[in-house]
């Protein structure tokens, strides 16, 4: 049975159902117990599962990740929460040098079924240390998997997949999407990691976008549809491993690709998408792969500045129109 749930509720339900199914699943993080997490993502879970399974930790990001790594190697399936994505930087050694590499460096003897959840993205005037989209840093690290859902359905299915996954995963929750509502089946299900979602089919251009930008891209596609432009929107959902096959197939069909993300343009994941597209679809392209992304600055505080910083429907539409200005082959 399906009903409408908010993105934050979909997250919560996935955690609750997986904890119900598997006694080895536990949660640890700052303020997630009695308080339920600063974004409400863990609401009610401590009351339901007890203080042993929903653990309030000190403000110690390195030890939070390390707690997860050590517990995972010892056979549990930890969900550890890093409140804001910016704070992964505090724990980067534990994520990059420990969680991601232990399996390989131990010759395969260890498994690390660890889920790291964190709140990413801008648009809340939270300034430079509480607004970043740092997915490219994580996707660059062999051993990690990275997901970033754009809607409640994908949130529940991806979160369940992360918890059941035998590798360290990072689930990026977009802070601006917490209240977004959508159809969510009540029964447990997974959205398999590494599978993109074709949000909208189209023939004139392909937009690849994730997180909140997938929704902005869909709005831009709707806007352009009224002008007779048919845009295909692809939400990879999982950023590592990236479903390049679905993206490439779309490029073969539309011959024009635009990538959109909230993270800064230089060295962003859009560069990887562009490179993959030119490697796999060079002969099909009628225009250079365009990137719509944040400029190369910290996320600004003032709403007046942040409005200019984050990509939006207008900028995405303009980029698609730009790609279409080039004559086709």
């Amino acid at each position, binding site marked *: 049975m399906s009903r409408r749930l908010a993105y934050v509720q979909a997250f919560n339900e996935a955690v609750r159902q997986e904890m119900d199914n598997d006694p080895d699943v*536990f949660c*640890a993080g700052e303020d997630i117990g009695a308080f339920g997490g600063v974004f409400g993502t863990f609401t009610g879970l401590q009351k339901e599962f007890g203080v*042993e399974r929903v*653990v309030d*930790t*000190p403000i*110690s*990001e*390195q*030890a*939070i*990740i*390390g*707690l*997860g*790594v*050590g*517990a*995972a*190697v*010892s*056979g*549990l399936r*930890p969900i550890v929460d890093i409140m804001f994505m910016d704070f992964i930087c505090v724990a980067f*050694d*534990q994520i990059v*040098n*420990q969680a991601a590499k*232990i*399996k*390989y*460096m*131990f*010759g*395969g*003897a*260890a*498994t*690390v079924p660890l889920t790291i959840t964190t709140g990413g993205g801008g648009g809340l005037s939270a300034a430079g240390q509480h607004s970043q989209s740092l997915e490219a840093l994580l996707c660059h690290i*062999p*051993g990690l*998997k990275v997901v970033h859902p754009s809607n409640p359905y994908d949130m529940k299915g991806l979160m369940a*997949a992360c918890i*059941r*996954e*035998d*590798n360290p995963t990072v689930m990026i929750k977009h802070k601006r999407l917490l209240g977004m509502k959508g159809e969510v089946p009540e029964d447990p299900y*997974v959205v*398999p*990691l*590494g*599978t993109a979602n074709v949000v909208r089919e189209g023939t004139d251009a392909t937009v690849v976008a994730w997180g909140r930008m997938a929704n902005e891209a869909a709005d831009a596609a709707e806007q352009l549809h009224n002008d007779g432009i048919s845009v295909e929107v692809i939400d990879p959902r*999982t950023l590592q*491993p*990236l*479903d*390049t*096959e679905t993206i490439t197939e779309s490029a073969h069909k539309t011959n024009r690709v635009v990538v959109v993300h909230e993270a800064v343009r230089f060295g962003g994941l859009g560069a990887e998408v562009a490179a993959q597209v030119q490697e796999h679809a060079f002969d099909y392209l009628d225009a250079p792969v365009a990137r719509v992304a944040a400029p190369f600055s910290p996320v600004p505080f003032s709403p007046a500045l942040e409005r200019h910083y984050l990509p939006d429907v207008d900028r995405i539409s303009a980029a698609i129109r730009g790609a279409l200005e080039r004559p086709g082959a």
Partner: protein
Amino acid sequence: MTQFDRDVQLDLHRRMVRIRLFEEAAGQLDEAAKLPGFLHLYVGQEAVASGVCAALTDDDQITSNHRGHGHLVAKGGQFNQMMAELMGKSTGYCKGKGGSMHISSLDVGMLGANGIVGAGSTIAVGAGFANKYRNNGHVSATFFGDGASNIGALHEAANMAAALQLPTLFICENNEYGEFTPRDQTMAITDIVDRAAGYGIPGVIVDGMDVVAVHEAAVEAVDRARRGDGPSLIEAKTYRFYNHHGVQNLGLKYRTDDEVEQWKQRDPIFTYEDRLIAADTATRDDVDAVWEELRADIAAAIEFAESSPAPEADQLLVDVYTSTDTAGVAR
């Protein structure tokens, strides 16, 4: 010394000799340019790993640091797989993908040496959490140096272990040097154990050159952790006989010959053998037989490692990820 059975006393000796022989052999191979990469030898500190690990079972976990061979040997690591790993061979504990700084064996609860100073401490906290979560009576222990006691992860780990009352031992091997810099230039305290009060956990100083003293302290700390009374800190005052890296390293002089010589007079193995013999626990022949037997094992391990195949190129991408149904399309 008499409080432990003869078997335990001889076991402590054997563990130390195993470490010494492995490390001496590794040092010789390194000087002969037969080992790739970095090598941090444990010679001089054998009493610490041996005294602590003799208080643990295979189900108890340890995490280690860059100077980790001694910890794995003491925990029950096998010479063959260890030597093969140091040589980067496919038969090594990590199939040649970890090497000296990442040597590990989950079979004996050794959750890895670690190339990042202090990083193993948080992982031991996670293992301790798992033990408490499962109420299985097992404990975890993390080995770290005086240098690591200054890094943030260590403080986070100790505080978290205390806050959550986890069965985790913090074993500080204070060898007075963080790499090449003396301790008194990097901290304003003399005894690392002073920090235990800051975490709200018990802490004791032991003579790290006395394996019995270390073992006594470890047994007490393990008992406390097993009965649910939480973590504790043991500071073992010890000394590394060789350089930070390798045997002579670059010939760097940051310690006086006198200082090194004074500590060598307190060699943890030779002084212990004198005590065993004086107490009629063992004869000189008994002691010599241990060395002889283990020397043969080391020689066999070197032969095993040298004759083992290097990993094939097709192993490069194996074990980056665990394959699962939800793994999706990796490329």
